[in-house]
């Protein structure tokens, strides 16, 4: 055995794995000894229960897509055009300041046609013709509820389980719970494609942050322009062989130092430089979509050839999960259609519809869908009543935390079903409400994690993603 590996075995395990982090400790061994050596002498931690999904892709529709124009078909509303929302429906629920002073809440029926699709006969709006083609793979939830009515807290809530900044994000929890399948890549990758329209609502690094969890669980932003990973490229004038030469001497000197000082952290450092070098080799190939055959690229639509689009991000997401990245989150911006919905919503759908279809189809063709969970959701839904001027062709919709639509597909999810039901106004849930924390519990469950048992001690509390209230996975939609 390599003398350094022998030395590690002599280390106190608790210390080693606490300082270096369990995953990184294992990675260090992988570099210095045989790959995936069981040199640490213990079984790798197993999930809480057999997972249906190994990894997940979260398509985050930032801004709050209108369930009324996409998924929650309300044909009765056609007769209500321009009428007041009945007080009995609103029942004193809070409005944002944008409409709190509006004197009347006039009903704006969707102007889009809906039809049943697939064997499941799921209602889908004409704005999503491509997604409609794979609707039999989806479980559409019409009863997603959140606690927050404004973007910043609501987005933070859906991404971190808490409206106030400072908590760990969903992907970070997954990374913390499951670790990585591929030491050469980050465990949690984030993409923020930019659409044809202006940027829309802001994002913030906290949405993929590690919060109180160790920093390496934070999402790594994969960039469309410039280097795919920050600081991935060697400085100008330095090629791989020059870098290799430098790293060889660096490793020799560090090994010598380790022999004198004896801190295992030094070994981890050596391993990290080696990993960094390998990422420099592997990541550019991974993000090079031209390596995909034309028929696969075509699935995602014409935007796929433009870097930084939602389509390109979806194809990249598939390549990432294929390589063992645990959690990929794509933020698609511009769904906050307050005033100009008929102008903006079709653009949003055009950008995202075919890529969603492409992703599901591509995953399925490769047999990856069974073990990959795909989630499509935004931070809240929108109101049936109009914000701004209402005409037969022009309307806007206000934030609505009480009802939102989302869909899940793949690993562990019952396909071709619809879950939850709203009233005629899509204003209140009348059957099977799904709280954001229930959604979180469901996602974790698919990945083999019991949301009540995945906790972290922070400021004296055992914090979990799903908050303090009793929550549970949405059992009826699980296989």
């Amino acid at each position, binding site marked *: 055995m390599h003398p350094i590996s022998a030395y590690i075995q002599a280390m106190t395990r608790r210390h080693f794995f606490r300082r270096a982090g*369990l995953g990184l400790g294992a990675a260090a061994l992988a570099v210095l000894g045989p790959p995936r050596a069981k040199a640490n002498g213990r079984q790798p931690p197993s999930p809480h229960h057999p997972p249906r999904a190994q990894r997940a892709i979260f398509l985050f529709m930032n801004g709050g897509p209108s369930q009324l124009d996409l998924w929650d078909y309300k044909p009765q509303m056609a007769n209500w055009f321009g009428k007041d929302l009945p007080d009995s429906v609103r029942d004193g629920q809070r409005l944002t300041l944008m409409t709190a002073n509006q004197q009347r809440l006039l009903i704006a029926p969707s102007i889009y046609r809906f039809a049943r699709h697939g064997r499941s006969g799921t209602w889908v709006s004409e704005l999503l013709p491509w997604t409609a083609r794979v609707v039999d793979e989806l479980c559409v939830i019409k009863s997603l509820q959140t606690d927050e009515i404004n973007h910043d807290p609501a987005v933070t809530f859906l991404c971190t389980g808490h409206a106030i900044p400072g908590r760990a994000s969903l992907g970070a929890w997954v990374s913390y719970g499951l670790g990585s399948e591929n030491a050469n890549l980050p465990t949690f990758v984030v993409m923020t494609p930019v659409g044809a329209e202006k940027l829309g609502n802001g994002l913030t690094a906290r949405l993929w942050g590690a919060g109180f969890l160790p920093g390496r669980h934070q999402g790594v932003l994969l960039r469309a*322009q410039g280097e795919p990973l920050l*600081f991935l490229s060697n400085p100008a004038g330095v090629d791989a062989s020059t870098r290799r030469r430098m790293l060889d001497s660096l490793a020799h000197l560090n090994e010598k130092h380790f022999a004198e000082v004896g801190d295992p952290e030094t070994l981890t450092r050596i391993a*990290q430089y080696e990993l960094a070098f390998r990422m420099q080799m592997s990541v550019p190939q991974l993000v090079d979509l031209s390596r995909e055959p034309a028929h696969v690229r075509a699935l995602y639509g014409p935007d796929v050839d433009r870097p930084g689009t939602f389509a390109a991000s979806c194809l990249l997401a598939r390549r990432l999960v294929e390589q063992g990245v645990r959690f990929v989150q794509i933020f698609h911006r511009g769904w906050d259609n307050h005033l100009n919905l008929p102008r903006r919503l079709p653009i949003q759908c055009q950008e995202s519809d075919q890529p969603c279809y492409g992703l599901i189809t591509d995953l399925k063709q490769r047999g990856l869908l069974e073990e990959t969970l795909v989630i499509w959701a935004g931070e809240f839904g929108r109101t049936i009543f109009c914000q701004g001027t209402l005409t037969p062709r022009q309307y806007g919709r206000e934030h609505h935390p009480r009802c939102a639509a989302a869909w899940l597909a793949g690993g562990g999810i019952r396909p071709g079903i619809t879950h939850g039901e709203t009233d005629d106004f899509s204003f209140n849930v009348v059957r099977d409400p799904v709280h954001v924390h229930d959604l979180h519990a469901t996602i974790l469950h698919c990945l083999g994690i019991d949301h009540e048992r995945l906790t972290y001690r922070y400021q*004296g509390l055992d914090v979990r993603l799903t908050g303090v209230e009793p929550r549970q996975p949405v059992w009826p939609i699980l296989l």
Partner: protein
Amino acid sequence: MTGHLTNNRWSSRRAGVRWLLVCAALALGVVGLEGRGRRPGGARSPATEHASARHWAFVPPQMPRLPSVQQADWPRNPIDYFILQRLEAAGLRPSPEADRTTLIRRVTLDLTGLPPTPEEVDAFLADTRPRAYERLVVRLLQSPRFGEHMARYWLDAARYADTHGLHSDDYSAVWPYREWVITAFNRNLPFDQFLIEQLAGDLLPHATPEQQIATGFLRCHLSSTDAALAEEEVRVGNMVDITETTAAVTLGLTFSCARCHDHKYDPLSMRDYYSFYAFFNSFDGSPYNFHLPAPPPAVAVPSPRQQQREQELYQRGEALRREIAAACARCRDDVGPDRGEVAPLADQPRDYVWFDDELPRSARILQDGVAEDECRVVRRPEGPVFSGESALRIKSRETGRHYVIQIDPPLVIGPGDRLFCYVYLDPDDPPAQVMLQWRTRDFDHRASWGEDLIPHTDAGRPTIRHFGALPKSGEWVRLEVAAEEVGLAPGAVVDGIGFAQYDGTVYWDATGSRTRLPVHQQTFDTLAEWLAVQRRLNGARLPPAIRELALKPDNQRTPEQRRQLRDFFLQRAYRGNREVLEPLLARLAEHEDAVSRFYAELPQAPVYRDAAMPRPTFILRGGQFDRRGSRVEPAVPACLPPLPADAPRNRLGLARWLVSPQQPLTARVIVNRFWQQFFGTGLVRTVDDFGLRGEPPSHPELLDWLACRFQRDGWNVKHLVYWLVTSATYRQTSRASPEARARDPENRLLSRGSRLRLDAEVLRDQALFCGGLLVEEIGGPSVKPPQPPGLWEAVVTANSNTGRFVADVGPQKVYRRSLYTFWKRTAPPPQMTILDAPSRETCVFRRERMNTPLQALVMLNDPQWVEAARGMAERAWAKAESQRERLVWLFRLAVVRRPDAAELAELEAALGDLRRAFERRPPAAAQLVGVGERPVRVAVEPTELAAWTMLAHLILNLDEVVTRE
């Protein structure tokens, strides 16, 4: 790699497991036995009044006696007795002292955040007199770098940042507070005073501007501009942030649970929470930040040069005014009595052009969604102009707004007035909507043409009116609306206007009102005539003091007031002396222009201030802003000693109570944090939790000794630091045998020195320092060294004023210490966060020290690191002649010690290979040495310099260099 499903999951159900672990630790001697009696339940016990009343941290510290030890020649100061006693009890011996080069590097990095220079090392090694180390420490404590380095830790706790953090995440100019913190550490402000000034500096008797700036601590919270949020909701959010941060920083207690329900483990109730909150709740300002860098209340922060300039301006103004008064005195003054009616309205309305080409003096411009290069003044024939010399061209994608505010004189609205503005829509790029907004107290007076696409927060209110289709494009059109249609009643005073559009290119020109008010007349023959006009205009064009006099009933002015009014009239508006005064008045106008520009440019620091009327505080049920429960008064948590009866029930009373001797937590919390800073782990490892769920201290007596000593010393920080870093405990070597590591794996017993990876800022500063690049200048606004493109753009909202990152240039900006790097909360500088700096959104006392490949990538590929390495190579080249000497010097520059033969051989071999590699590819060498802003300063072949740069870069990345040994 594997995950953490089986780790760190001690939920309450599993407390038993944890208890077993604690017992095991006790048996192993990892956790002390002697403190048990004072720590009932150690790990966890039910939060009954009884148990919590005796929780160790809630009992005031008593100065313990020094324990007796066997190895009596080891301790250097009292700290060492406590450490040694524990070691001896565990059958361990302390490690030997680290060698002197390691010591000087360790203590220099720990006290200043920068490594020692080779010259400083030589001087220290040559100083063979006794107490050389102590003298070194004293020198370092006097370095201004000490304050910068100490401030950085505090700023993590204070969640200091340069943007507001929520919604559009705009610029926040709280940097004067950062400067205050640095200065406070450098002048060794006693720590109790340090806390008092930050929590209540404004309430101190005769509070200085600096003491007010200190309250910036309370203004570092996240804040919003989101108009969709209710004002009360935003206020509650701000107060929650302030309350929880203050409690965490001073008491080491986590208050956040008690916001929604009584704390599960600690004896903190919701009443405690909101009573603590009540101390802050009377903040005298809006909870929104309005996109402002220093939302009021704020104080001006003139630099010394600006203070001098202010004096000069003041004196010049006084001289001018005296000159005018003197000239006036030589003129006619038969102006009649100061009696007037209200001037009649003109029979026919006339156009009053408020402004056309020239912006009125004092006016400021705010933009929203308009990029700078998309908004500019154009002249003929570049673009169409309606009147005068120029027009304003705005090009926008979606919503773009251009506001002009603080317009003096303001526009006064008269009965039946109409408002106008000229527009020209580009026929090749028409907008979908144009909108005018007039500002009284806010911009809620809107007139819109075209579609309804521009967001506004008050749909349906009478303050927005739609006036139908867009005007014709390709020609100048006069947009005109009745003032009353946009909610402006007669008498309203408008001091700002906004030009808004959705998409397209629009030219905007002359704006004003069609009015019957007497707005055109500037000079008058009699005081009575002038007074009548001012009354008709509601005094809107007068300075506030004169306005008050002018509007007063004529028979109620005192003789002094009558004189003032008359003097003002004579000097400013009397036709009779106009000819004489005109040149002087023109100079005065110019002067006042300079004054207003001066004040507009003066940096402002946000401060805390209480409103005259205290705002009532209520318990908020479920923590929700709109669910008020019973009312509470300011009070401290019931589980702690009460406020003294005579203490004021305000922030000052709270601050003084926090640092009072009977209050058991603050001194312990503070010394524990300093301990963590110098030893890597706190005596209480959970530095942020001294409650029942926190870990008990590893050395309870030592913690109490330090806390008592610190208080007795008058909270003297430099003194405390001196004690810590001159102890034998601190000076131990960090090298350890496998056996020693096995017996004290986490070094909780301090059987050796700590090894810590340097913090992000120190790593970057060290590189710049070694490369000879660092520009040391204390304080000032934040700077933007280069960062990879697109990071801000990836997260930004359309209307943020920190939407586009433009790197600074010039050594004064690019090579400053990292403490001054601009911190955008939604996209912090990646060089910092990748290396475990917190996001500065919440209070953080303990940074992780991870070890990831992404960190290696920063240190290998960040251009500033490359540039620093090249700087090192250039310095080595200039410093020594032979290759061997240069290598040794380079090594010492970063590693501090001398390389041994094996290391030299490795480096020489690497250098040879790298040199050959670059000789094969000379263009690559030129590229590498061209990285960075500073040109090459030594005459050496690029291939040679490139090889040395790589070598220096290698040295900068050595484990020994990125670690403080």
